[in-house]
């Protein structure tokens, strides 16, 4: 049984102009110790997905249908107190901007100790000892000093190390990291990413890594999801998706990478922009931007087609697979 199983998850934002669906029909699984990447354009719903796993959507967002199965619980339908005992304990989160994540008026020590005390019956002294150990694990210089410091006394990189240490405090099963390095200096990004990778490997922690950076995804994760307009449109082993993208959108993302551009020429951006949630077209959401668009694409939502070890939601891929099958039979 997988560690985490997300089934047909749907998230609604009840706005004044009517309800919009930020996630539709999202299903995937995560094995113990597995590292899963989630990529997609800005607004695709990556963060919404990350938060809905621990059922922590800010108003007016809510899970409108689907399940999130974790250790026999359905997190999408769990009482607040039980959810609380899982958040930060079995599943923890790392946010994007370490400058905003830590409370400016509480010491690092307070913010670490409270998390331990919320989930374990231990003394403050023991909690401090564990906090210190975790600070050492994230390789912060002079960790003893940090417990009494306030966030503003530390640099962005150090703060993100502290956020990671908080994420690891209770030896969780899953860490959800939402663009954990985007807000950092380029020079520190790689360091922090390496650190996270090592810590997850050492402690057999599963990682859900949300990012824009396909390079990072290929280095860190074993499997990946590609999201577009609130749906998963392609998923599979990271190597396969990256090296042999099937979905036209994923191919577009790959071609837009700077490495793919011919020197001196413009980057190959996918033309057009992702539609706002209120105006997602009928059929395949990607159809206005797709160069392979067919009639059926504007009528019918594509379902997943198996392609190698990947699943792809695209009519074109479905047809070519069909042809392959027929071809084989003849």
């Amino acid at each position, binding site marked *: 049984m997988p560690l985490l199983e997300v089934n047909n998850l749907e998230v609604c934002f009840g706005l004044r102009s009517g309800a919009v669906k930020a996630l539709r029909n999202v299903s995937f699984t995560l094995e113990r110790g597995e590292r899963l990447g989630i990529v997609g354009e800005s607004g695709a719903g990556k963060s919404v997905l990350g938060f809905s796993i*621990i059922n*922590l959507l*800010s108003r007016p967002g809510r899970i409108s249908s689907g399940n999130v199965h974790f250790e026999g619980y359905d997190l999408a339908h769990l009482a607040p107190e039980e959810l*609380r*005992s*899982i*958040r*930060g*304990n079995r599943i*923890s*989160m790392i*946010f994007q*901007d370490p400058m*905003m*994540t*830590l*409370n*400016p*008026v*509480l*010491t690092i020590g307070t913010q670490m100790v*409270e*998390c331990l005390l*919320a*989930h374990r019956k231990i003394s403050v002294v023991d909690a401090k000892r564990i906090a210190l150990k975790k600070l050492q694990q994230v390789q912060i210089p002079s960790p003893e000093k940090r417990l009494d410091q*306030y966030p*503003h006394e530390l640099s962005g990189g150090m703060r993100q190390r502290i*956020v990671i240490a*908080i994420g690891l405090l209770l030896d969780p099963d899953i860490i959800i990291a939402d663009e954990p390095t985007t807000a950092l200096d380029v020079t520190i990004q790689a360091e922090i990413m390496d650190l996270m990778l090592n810590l997850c490997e050492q402690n057999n922690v599963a990682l859900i890594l949300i990012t824009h950076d396909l390079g990072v995804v290929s280095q860190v994760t074993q499997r990946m999801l590609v999201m577009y307009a609130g749906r998963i449109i392609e998923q599979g082993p990271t190597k396969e998706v990256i090296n042999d993208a099937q979905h036209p959108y994923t191919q577009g993302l790959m071609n837009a990478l700077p490495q793919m551009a011919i020197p001196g020429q413009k980057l190959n951006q996918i033309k057009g922009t992702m539609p706002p949630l209120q105006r997602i077209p009928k059929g395949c959401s990607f159809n206005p931007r797709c160069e392979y668009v067919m009639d059926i694409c504007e009528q019918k939502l594509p379902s997943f087609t198996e392609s190698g070890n990947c699943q792809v939601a695209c009519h074109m891929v479905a047809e070519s697979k069909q042809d392959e099958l027929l071809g084989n039979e003849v």
Partner: protein
Amino acid sequence: MIAFFVKRFFQAVVVMFVISLISFSIQDNLGDPLRELVGQAVSEEERQALREEMGLNDPFLVQYVRFAKKAVQGDLGNSYFFKKPAFEVIMKKLPATLELVFGATIIIVLFSVPIGVYSAINPQSWFSKTVMGLSIVGISIPVFLTAIGLIYLFAIELGWLPSYGRGDTTNVMGFWETGLLSADGLKHLILPSFTLASIMLPLFIRLIRAEMMEVLQSEYVKFAWAKGISPRRIYFLHALKNTMLPVITVGGVQIGTMVAYTILTETVFQWPGMGFLFLEAVNRVDTPLIVAYLIVVGAIFVVTNTLVDLIYGLVNPTVNLAGKK
């Protein structure tokens, strides 16, 4: 810490200088003090001689320097009406006013924090909506109407509380007449305090609610939820502490402003404080007393602002009072 106080001290000096300049220059514009001092029968020559003797004919600057020199020693001249040093007269009334402001402040804190916090956490509840509606109404009701309403209900109809004066007072440390130590004094304090508080209370509730709602949207509060700590801790430690920072700043200024509002409250309730005295002084063109009042109020402003800065520094770790690195 010393640097903070030195800086504060110089700020205070500047503020006091400006206040003294203003209050001194209005002396000229409040009618002729001689009319108050001497009768109608005194001839113009004699008046002129008296003016000369009092220095009223000297140039503005000379008069001001003379005034300031004395003022620094606490000598603001004699009240024309009481024939006693104006400063002394004012200081005798200071405790009554400060206790009124203190009472109102306590009421404001006691009510605005829980109500503001609750309605920020549950913005959709009927309680929050009612409070928001009432606070709009509350802001627009004039103080004297509140006072009359309270007096009518609690003093006349129900007869629970006295409607004027300070009641029994106790002398502490020789100079402070307090009403806080006797049941009768406290009873007398209730209606005036609520009246004075009613001016600021709606404002504070709205301010706390707005700040708290914003803080609850912040990333660090969301992160606190993601850590699985208790809602109580999130609301009352993580969120409230950050909410109070701007509230303390605004609150400090408002407490200063409240001193000005005491004039009205004290008049309605016959509260024997500085504000009441000030109004009498204006009616009597008792200029030294008016000047003394303005200077004392200015001093209160400076002191409250200093205290507010200190408290703010204690709550907000990013403010460095001590100047240490």
